[in-house]
Every structure is written in C-alpha cells, then in structure tokens.
C-alpha cells in the first residue's frame, strides 16, 4: 500500500514513470534534445533548459558537451555581462599602448560556429536579449562580422515568479525545450557513448510527407500559438530525429519526439514506434493515457485525401489529440476556431517604468550629469571617458605623447555617474469574491474596473492584477500587468458561483503583494468581499475554521504592512468585512452596488495618493 503511494508520487512529480535505478525517460529526452541540437545548433536556435542548478543539470551539460564537435568553441556567460562585451569594440588600453587601433573582438564573434551558454537566463535584460536575438536572426553582427552560434539558456525561474523569466524574444528563437527539475539523480543516466551525428546533407534529404507536415503544423499551432518559428523548428527536429535513426523518410515516431522536444508537451511516441530510446522509461505502473476515440474530424479526412497510405491516420490523430490535451484544448473546438489561438503566457516585458534619479536600485547605465545632487562619480568610467582625449588635450597644450607616470588630464566633461533604476510603480491587486449568486455581476464590475484603471494607468505606470476566489480555492485570473490587451484576453471568461474560500483569496492576493514588493513596487490590495468565508485553508467547509484562517492571514497582511482596502459588497453590510478590515489594518469602504465606475474612482484615489 505504502509502496504504491510512493511510486504514484514520484510519477506525478516527474511526469514520467521513474523507477529506482531505471533511466529516467525525461532525462533520456533531454539527452536526445542535446544530440538534436548538436546536429544543427544554428538552425535549431538553441535549447531552453528549465531547472535549477543541480547535479542533474551538471550531468546533462556534461552529456551535451560530449556531443559538441571538438573544434566548436563554447562560452558560458552570466546575464549581467556588458552588452559591449558581446559585440566588441575598440580596446582603449591596448590601443593607447600600441599606438594603433586594437579591436576587442566581441564574444559572439569569437564564438562563431560554437555554443553560447547563458546561465541564469531568466535575469537577462531586454537589451542583452535584443542583441542576442538579432545575432541569431542575421547570423552576423553589425558590419557583417559572422556570428553563428547555438544558444543554451539555463532558465532557473520558477513557474510562479513572473518577475524573472527568459525574455520572449529569446524563448521563441530556441527550438528545443527541456525540463530537468524533478529528475532524480540516480535516474539521470546518460546512454552510453555518443551516437554518430548525421551531417547537414543527410538531414536535409529526409522527406517529410504531407500528412506528417500537416500534423506538425497543427500541433505546434496548438502548443506554441501564433509563432511561425515553432513549426519550422519542429520540422527540423523531425528530420534530424529521422536522420539519426538512419531513415530517409520521417515517421510518426519522429514527429511525436520532435513535438515533445520543441514544444515541451507530453506527447508519447506512437505504439508501433521502432525507436525505443524515447519510450524506454514507460513502466507498467503508468500506462500511456488512453486516447479518446479519434474524432470523425476534418483532419482524418485531410489525411485520407492525400496519397500517403503508409501513414496511419489514427496515429497522427493521436498525436494531435495528445497535443491538444497538453495545451488544455479541445481538439474539435480548436479546429473550428482555427489556428489563431495565442498563448496567454507570453512574456510580459516591462518597459522603462523606472524612476530616473533614483539613489538606489540596480545600475542602469552611465550619465554625464549627476542623477541627483551629491552623487559620487564613477571613477573607472570617468577615466575611461578621459582616456581617448589625452592625446588631443596634450597636443593642445603643446606636450608630447603621454607616458606612464604622468598625470592624466581629466576635465569636468569627463565625469560619469552611475544611473540607478528603481521601480516606483504601484500594483493594484484585486481579490474578488466570485462565490454565490451575485458573483457574475460582481466579477463583471471588477473586470470593468480593472480595464478602466488600465486605460488610464499609462500615465501613472501602474499595474493591475486580479484574483478570484470561489469553490475550493483561489485563482489568479490576471497576473500583474499594465497591458489592456492582455487583461482583456485573460478576462474574457470568468467563472463564478459555489462556496466562499475567503482565506484562499487573501492568501493568493498576499502572495502577489509580496512579489510586487520584492520587485520594488508598492502593492495595493483591494478586496471585494462581504467578509463571510465558509471554506477553511485546508479545504473543509467549516465556518469557524474559515473565519480563523481569514483573520490569521489578515494579521499577516497587517504585519507585512501591505496597504489594503476592503470594499464591502454585501447588500446589508454586517460585521464580517469590517472586522476583517480592522484586523488587516485596511480601509473599509461600503459599496453595495459595486459598479465599475465608483470602484475605479476609489482605487484610483488610493493609487494617486500613496
């Protein structure tokens, strides 16, 4: 009995059936991805590696490194690298010393034909991402110096942390994605030796029949949304996988593997696949999910129309159904609505919402004027600015060339100061009671309020988030965002009704507030509730427990010093919400009709007057 529980746990944790000492299928997949990448690093773009630093990741990097051709250079960089180091420029010191221009070759240039590994890639700045993405597109730097490389992005972000994640510009250009979290070290067994990798000609010669190509295109549209890079990358991965197995035509198994590795979806290779490498971890305790009966759908007809009888339409359909399930979609609904689904989780970049003249925060560039009175100059940058002028100034003063030991001529115009950037946005976090009969109405008003705030928030640079709680828990419907477009997309369908897990709601909202605080923003928590919860944190329907939990969390909020407003939306306000507000040190507003206009006025007044 205990055994079964334990094995079920491991299975759910890794998403695969990892038995002790058996090679982990997820790790085998990751190694396969590394080999596919090694075949065509430039065309494939790179690998998006999700997972914290761990022995498993080190082992994977080791396996990947062994696939790398011996002459290919490899460099590992930190995301804090100065962009100038990547692109290169004049080496001031060497030029002065030698008296002729000495170029400092950029890192990307020296890397031509090799691999670039970015550690902690989730902390990459948009600037760095921009430079790398452009080099990946044009395979060259400005001025035509070649820079072809494949990128391995080690992304250590966790799913709940929206503040730091791999910039979308990079993520979309990386063809392969693997997840190393949850793989046990003893399962991380690399297959012995490195198979000979096929060459470019063999890969290009692999034929992909029309039904297979259709499946790839459809599945990538479901899994990775609008991007047209995804199907191109998946097709290439299909070819490479077939070529590695020595085939000259792709099969269903190749497509399944390619989709799994390029989209990160759990797609099993079809049953009759002869290539066992990627299915080897399938134990009996985790049978592959039984696909629902194939739909009498358009895609079956599609496959039949073409003359490629050797492909089993059922298998192709299974792949699609699996893909649809991974994307949380109904295949038929998807086919009806067409290909226009976009994933809501695209990276929310943060444009320059940074307070200029900040005294703290992270350094963001150099300026010639003190950013605030009494700022201390940055000595290194000042000397660097002064260096090129030495020859000019000495000439003007009738002196000969500078030699070591002589004083430098530094003038006021050379002074450089470090500019600090520091967020001063506010984030309004709405926690809305979506339970009971009036929920829909209330949610609609809250949604209206969110959109109205966003419509004017541009001026104030505020962000808005929305949490709804109902039934068994709370759900973050809208992560903090400043984008009206995004809010509209996330808020099109709002669920309502059921019991009231007030404590869950406060907890989710507090989590968001704490994250906003960590980001340097000032959160404002807006609760729309009547203060009467009936689900405790442990999920039981228990009024007393629910109340105690809610008040506990309210005290926690007060201790954290989070500014909050409780808007009482009960028809006849009673004690519940007021007590909660007092415990939370929150302001208390009664708004029995809770209409969007009045609400946004209340919230805006708080945001304007911190």
């Amino acid at each position, binding site marked *: 009995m205990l055994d079964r529980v334990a094995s079920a746990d491991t299975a759910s944790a890794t998403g695969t059936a990892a038995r002790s000492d058996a090679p982990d299928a997820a790790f085998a997949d990751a190694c396969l991805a590394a080999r596919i990448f090694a075949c065509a690093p430039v065309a494939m773009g790179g690998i998006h590696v999700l997972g914290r630093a761990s022995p498993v990741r080190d082992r994977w990097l080791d396996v990947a490194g062994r696939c790398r051709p011996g002459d290919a250079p490899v460099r590992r960089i930190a995301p804090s690298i100065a962009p100038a180091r990547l692109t290169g420029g004049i080496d001031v010191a060497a030029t002065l010393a030698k008296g002729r221009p000495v170029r400092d070759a950029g890192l990307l240039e020296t890397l031509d034909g090799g691999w670039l590994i970015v550690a902690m890639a989730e902390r990459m700045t*948009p600037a760095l*991402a921009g430079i790398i993405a452009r080099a990946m597109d044009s395979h060259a730097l400005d001025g035509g110096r070649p820079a072809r490389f494949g990128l391995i992005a080690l992304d250590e972000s966790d799913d709940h942390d929206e503040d730091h994640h791999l910039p979308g510009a990079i993520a979309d250009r990386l063809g392969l994605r693997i997840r190393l979290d949850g793989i046990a070290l003893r399962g991380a067994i690399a297959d012995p030796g490195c198979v000979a990798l096929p060459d470019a000609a063999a890969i290009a010669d692999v034929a992909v029949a029309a039904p297979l*190509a259709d499946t790839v295109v459809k599945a990538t549209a479901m899994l990775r949304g609008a991007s047209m890079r995804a199907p191109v990358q998946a097709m290439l991965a299909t070819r490479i996988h077939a070529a590695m197995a020595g085939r000259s035509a792709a099969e269903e198994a190749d497509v399944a593997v390619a989709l799994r590795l390029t989209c990160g979806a759990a797609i099993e290779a079809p049953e009759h696949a002869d290539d066992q490498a990627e299915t080897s971890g399938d134990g009996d305790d985790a049978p592959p999910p039984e696909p629902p009966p194939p739909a009498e759908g358009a895609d079956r007809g599609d496959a039949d129309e073409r003359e490629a009888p050797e492909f089993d339409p059922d298998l192709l359909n299974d792949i699609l159904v699996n893909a649809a399930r991974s994307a949380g979609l109904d295949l038929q609904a998807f086919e009806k609505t*067409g*290909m226009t689904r976009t994933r809501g989780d695209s990276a929310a970049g943060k444009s320059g919402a940074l307070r200029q003249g900040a005294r703290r925060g992270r350094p963001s560039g150099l300026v010639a004027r003190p950013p605030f009175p009494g700022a201390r100059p940055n000595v290194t940058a000042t000397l660097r600015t002064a260096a090129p002028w030495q*020859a000019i100034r000495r000439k003007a003063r009738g002196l000969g060339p500078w030699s070591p030991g002589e004083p430098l001529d530094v003038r006021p115009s050379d002074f450089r100061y470090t500019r600090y950037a520091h967020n001063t946005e506010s984030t309004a976090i709405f926690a809305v009671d979506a339970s009971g009969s009036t929920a829909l109405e209330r949610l609609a008003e809250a949604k209206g309020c969110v959109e109205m705030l966003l419509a004017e928030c541009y001026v104030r640079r505020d962000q808005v988030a929305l949490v709804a709680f109902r039934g068994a828990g709370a759900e973050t419907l809208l992560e903090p965002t400043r984008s*009206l477009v995004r809010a509209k997309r996330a808020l099109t369908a709002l669920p309502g009704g059921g019991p009231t897990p007030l404590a869950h709601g406060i907890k989710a909202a507090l989590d968001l507030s704490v994250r906003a605080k960590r980001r340097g923003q000032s959160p404002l928590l807006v609760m729309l509730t009547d203060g009467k919860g009936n689900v405790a944190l442990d999920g039981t329907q228990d009024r007393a427990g629910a109340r105690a939990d809610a008040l506990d969390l309210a005290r926690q909020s007060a201790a954290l010093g989070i500014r909050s407003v409780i808007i009482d939306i009960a028809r006849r306000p009673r004690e519940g919400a007021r007590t909660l507000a007092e415990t939370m040190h929150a302001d208390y507003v009664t708004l029995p009709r809770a209409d969007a206009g009045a609400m946004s006025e209340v919230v805006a007044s708080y945001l304007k007057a911190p």
Partner: protein
Amino acid sequence: MSAPFPFAAIVGQEEMKQALLMTAVDPLLGGVLVFGDRGTGKSTAIRALAALLPGIQTRPSCLYNCEPDRPVEICTVCNADTPGRPKKRPAPVVDLPLGATEDRVCGALDLERALIAGEKAFEPGLLARAHRGFLYIDEVNLLEDHLVDLLLDVAASGVNVVEREGLSVRHPARFVLIGSGNPEEGELRPQLLDRFGLAVDVASPGNLADRVEVVRRREAYERDRDGFVDTYKRKDAAVRRKIDKARGLIDDVSVPDDVLELASRICMALGVDGLRGELTLMRAARARAALAGRTETQKADIVAIAPMALRHRLRRDPLDEAGSAARVERAVGEVANGAAGHA
C-alpha cells in the same frame, strides 16, 4: 551576410505588405507600426523590404548619406577638394537594437582617431546611417524612455543635434520609422504612437494550408538561400518596378473634393484629434492610388486604408470589446454609406 528572405515569398500578411509598400512610395507618410505576436514575420518582411527600395545617390564612403549636391558641413568625404563621383547605392535600412546606447544612436567622439592621431572627430551614429532610408526598431515598446524621447525629437525635426563631450555637431537625419512589437508586453507611449503614420496588426496565417506553405518556403530558403532567392527574383523585381513606377506617379496623383470630404467625415465621426489623421489619410490614399497605377484617388482608397491610418489615433475606450480597427471600419461603413445616400 547572406541574401534576406524575398519579399514576394512572404505568405499572406497583405495588410502589412501594403503598408510597407506605401511608405516605400511616400517616405513622408510617417512610417509604420507593426503590432503582433512573436514569430509572425514582422522582422522578415521589413528586412525583405530593404532589398526592394529604390537606391539613393550618394558618394562612396560618405558616412552621412549626403545628397551629392547638398553635402552636410561636417562630411569630410563630400566636402573634400575633389569629391568622388556620386554612385547609386541601396537605401539604408538600419536596425536599432534594443540595447543601443545614446552614443551608438546619435554618434560620439571617434575613439579610434582620438586614441591614435589625437584628433577630435565625430563618429556618426545610427541616425546618420539611417538618413534617407529606414530606421527599424524591433520591440519598440520596450525601448528605454530616454531613447524614445531622443528619437521623437529627431524624427520630428529631421535633424540630429549632438552637444556634448566638447563636440558640437548637427546633421540631417530624415528617415522612415518602422517599429514592431507585441502589445501584450507593454504598451507604447501615446506620443510615440501618434508619430507613426500607419499601424497594422499582424497575426500568423489562420489556415493550415498557408501555415504549411510558410514552413515549406522557410525550409527551402534555409536549405539553399541563394537558390531560393533566385526563384523569387522575377516576382521581387516586379514589386520593385511597382514601387519605382508609383514613386514617379505620386506627385501627380490628385485628390478630388468628394474623397477629401469623405476623409474629413470619417475623422470627425471617430473624433480623431488634430489634423494629422486627415493628412495621413490623404497621403496614404495617394500612395495607394499610385501603387495601383492611377493618377486620381478614389473613395475606395480611403475606405481601404482608413483602418491602418487611424486605428492608433483613437482615444481608448476600455469598455469597447472590439479592437480599434473594428471601430474604424464601423465608422467608415457608416460614413461611406451616409455619403453615398447624399449623392
């Protein structure tokens, strides 16, 4: 660098292609803003356009893209005692990277010459290189505020003024601004939004056949770039001729009164502030007529280009579910039908 993906090989994306062609015909149109998801071919289209633009006359190795008979004061190449003979060269399409420093954009002290010869010389930046051509900013909505301010100023005045580090330089920088970005990642400042003449939304093709075709063409291109470009050579040449011809025509395109009136009515119906909307409508209509080989604009021109000329100028109405393009279309429909009723 190898040949870019051919413009004619881009599947679909008609609205974006039309907008790009129109700015190529009339650089004064004010540029294009392309909004859409990643991987929908924004950058591909813009880089492809570069190959089709009519070339400019300038002297070889001139760093400011001077017009041969009106050189910039500081240009040492064109002001030499025996300046070289002007030659035709492709119109510049300059990429402005997100992480570019102010020095890179505006120009700064020429380090090389300062270090070696001890000379104080100005090294022109990206703005100088973009003069008489296109300036492309990918992810324009993520650009740092101080660079946005700088670009707005230069785009409005057509002159880049550098006053720092003991340098005092001014040179013309007239360019067509093309921006692209994903609105979900942060919105654009309204001041910058308004600066763009046209705005288009792009999405990847919605049907399977087109998507498969995109993948096929991309694969063919990756396999044999030069060969692929060759197969589209004639189609690309046809587009180039179309632009050339339209450029010759555009000064002669007339705008009849009823077309003018329609434009004004649409702007009034939508409550577009200022005259910029109407002016853009007129210019865009003329560019469209010229591309079609006509010398007179028609009401159909206005109807066709109204969404891209006006959608980014509307005041935002957060409670209107439909996109701004739909609002423009609705207004155009109402006004056009009303106008037809009057006639």
